[in-house]
């Protein structure tokens, strides 16, 4: 008797779960599951991705959503751990029934989630990890890269640096995959574009190394013409502070990817070094177009701060999701992906398209130099040179040759 009761209760509960989950999926929404690092130092970037995305979908939902459906989202914090991230993606798809996955700043997680997305045939938008493997070696039909990767950043920098008169280069950076990938990409492309350059030495420090002064004094003693600095995250600022304290920035010019970006310059206020070369994929004050201004105003109104580069990645992902479904005309994943290939939208930085061959967003890069500006309490990027996607993106053949047949 007891057994039967137990069984009945269990059956009711089980059925209940089933019904609940069934109603969830049948609800009139398109669900996006966001797995990202929302704790620890990386959250300074990921929270902007999330806020940019929220801004875009709030606007779309206010206009009645897409195909009569509202876009909803759920977030999961993977705490910078790929295995946890992959498990969370699975949970989002199987329990929350999300239609689309999105994230993450951690390349390891992005690749793990991407592998799951490929098996489950779920569209996955990579928002802020920079590994070129995402659309290269490990690329597939269901993954889309919404920001630049290390190879793209390196090529863009090389295009600009190749025209400069520097010959003797020093390479320095954070001793982890991102640091080496950026350094290699800049250096290999620079050598290809300007065979005269020479490498006179390298320094690598551990990730999170607080005081970079000993590395800088040693580089200064070696007297190179130019330094390629491959740092990421908080180390961007640590290097700039040490460069200012030692006077490096006045003696030997150096380049940092995202060195001219708000994320790096904001916290330093007026104390950041001037004359730092950097590349960025978004500057809230450049180009000074009505579309960019409108986006920045909206973002400021909603969150009381200036958007960083990661904010626009989130925003554009929201735009692409809506436009993709609109073009597909139905909520069908395969049709959605077909619609996204080659789709062009009007983004805050001008019309941008997703390349059909490798699912990479074709976005411009701005190469500039840091300088004080009376309009802002922090340094900005000046003498900005727009490097168009066609001038620096690896070709379809170059990307696809990495993929296994």
């Amino acid at each position, binding site marked *: 008797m007891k057994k039967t009761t137990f069984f009945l209760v269990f059956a009711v509960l089980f059925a209940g779960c089933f019904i609940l989950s069934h109603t969830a999926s049948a609800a009139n929404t398109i669900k996006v599951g966001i797995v990202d690092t929302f704790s620890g130092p990386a959250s300074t970037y990921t929270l902007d991705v999330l806020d940019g995305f929220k801004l875009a979908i709030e606007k779309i939902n206010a206009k009645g959503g897409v195909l009569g459906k509202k876009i909803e989202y759920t977030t999961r914090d993977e705490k910078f751990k790929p295995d946890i991230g992959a498990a969370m993606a699975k949970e989002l798809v199987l329990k929350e029934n999300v239609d689309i996955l999105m994230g993450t700043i951690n390349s390891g997680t992005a690749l793990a989630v991407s592998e799951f997305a490929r098996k489950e045939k779920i569209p996955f938008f990579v928002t802020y990890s920079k590994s070129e493997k995402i659309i290269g070696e490990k690329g597939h039909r269901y993954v889309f890269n919404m920001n630049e990767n290390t190879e793209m950043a390196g090529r863009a920098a090389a295009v600009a640096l190749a025209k400069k008169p520097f010959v003797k280069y020093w390479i320095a950076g954070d001793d982890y995959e991102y640091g080496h990938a950026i350094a290699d990409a800049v250096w290999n492309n620079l050598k290809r574009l300007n065979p005269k350059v020479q490498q006179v030495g390298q320094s690598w420090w551990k990730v999170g190394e607080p005081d970079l002064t000993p590395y800088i004094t040693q580089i200064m003693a070696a007297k190179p013409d130019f330094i390629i600095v491959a740092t990421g995250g908080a180390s961007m*600022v640590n290097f700039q502070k040490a460069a200012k304290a030692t006077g490096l920035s006045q003696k030997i010019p150096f380049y940092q990817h995202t060195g001219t970006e708000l994320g790096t310059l904001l916290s330093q206020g007026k104390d950041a070094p001037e004359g730092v070369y950097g590349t960025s994929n978004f500057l809230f004050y450049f180009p000074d177009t009505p579309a960019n201004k409108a986006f920045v105003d909206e973002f400021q109104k909603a969150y009381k701060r200036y958007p960083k580069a990661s904010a626009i990645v989130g925003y554009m992902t929201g735009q692409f999701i809506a436009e993709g479904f609109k073009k597909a005309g139905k909520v069908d994943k395969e049709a959605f992906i077909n619609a996204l290939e080659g789709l062009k939208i009007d983004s805050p930085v001008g019309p941008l398209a997703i390349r059909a061959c490798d699912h990479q967003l074709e976005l411009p890069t701005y190469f500039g130099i840091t300088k004080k500006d009376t309009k802002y309490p922090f340094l900005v990027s000046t003498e900005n040179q727009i490097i168009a996607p066609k001038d620096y993106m690896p070709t379809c053949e170059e990307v696809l040759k990495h993929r296994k047949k």
Partner: protein
Amino acid sequence: MDFIYSFISPGFLSQILVGLSRTVILFIVASGLSLILGVLRIPNVFHGSLYMIGAFMSYTISVAFGGGDTGFWLALIGAPIGVALISLVIERGLFQYLYEREHLMLILFTFAISLVFGDLVKLVWGAEYKSVPVPQVFQGFVSLFGGLPFPKYNTFLLFMGPVVAFALWLLVTKTKMGKISQAAAVDREMVGAVGINVSWVFATVFVIGCLLAGLGGALVAPTVSVTLGMDHSLIMEGFLIVIIGGLGNIWGALLGALIFGLTQSLGILIWPQFGIVFPYCAVIVVLLIRPTGLLKSTW
């Protein structure tokens, strides 16, 4: 004469000075760790978190006073005191009940607190990077040996190191407090039996140790980006220094910090590509020769 000059090249001397200024921060933080380890027998994993909180507090104080010189000096005093107050609450509220527990449990407990602090810092200060401006007097650099630059702020650090070391020496050897704590470390029950309130001695030592972590954070703040995660990179180095110096020995912490700071900066000079490995190699060498650390461990 020429031979000596070529050996003492400008680059070499400059790296030594830079290494010494790094040593100062490492020593200040590690000595606090060592003090707590020696007297209370607690491997304090959240020491790094307190260092991070010290840096964040120094940001808040510096901003509250307009980000100028006054802000910096007040932060240098206020941040360690703030950290000391936090540690006092933790000691009185939690630790005083746990001294008799096993080491493994204490490690897990302090580790748990470090995780809690990590999230609390994010709640209070947010995820943005913070930056404390270098005060006017210490901005820029001085040119030394052959025109190589040495940041003025680092000369200030070189001054602070001996000051802190001297203050610690006075505290440990010349005050009644210091003597009681040394005795309590050796035989706690005996000290209690002669009528001394051991619990408060432990609290005081704990707070002083944590104050040093806060001071380290406040001193390092102007040279780095104040950010979540700065605790993790430091706590490992802190423990390594304490281990090679001899557990619980403050002078061991000084020696360990010197070895760590100098092998790092000179390693960079010799082989910049692999500069990271030199301090760790030094740790291995020391532990092979003297497994219990260079100086006498109090354990």
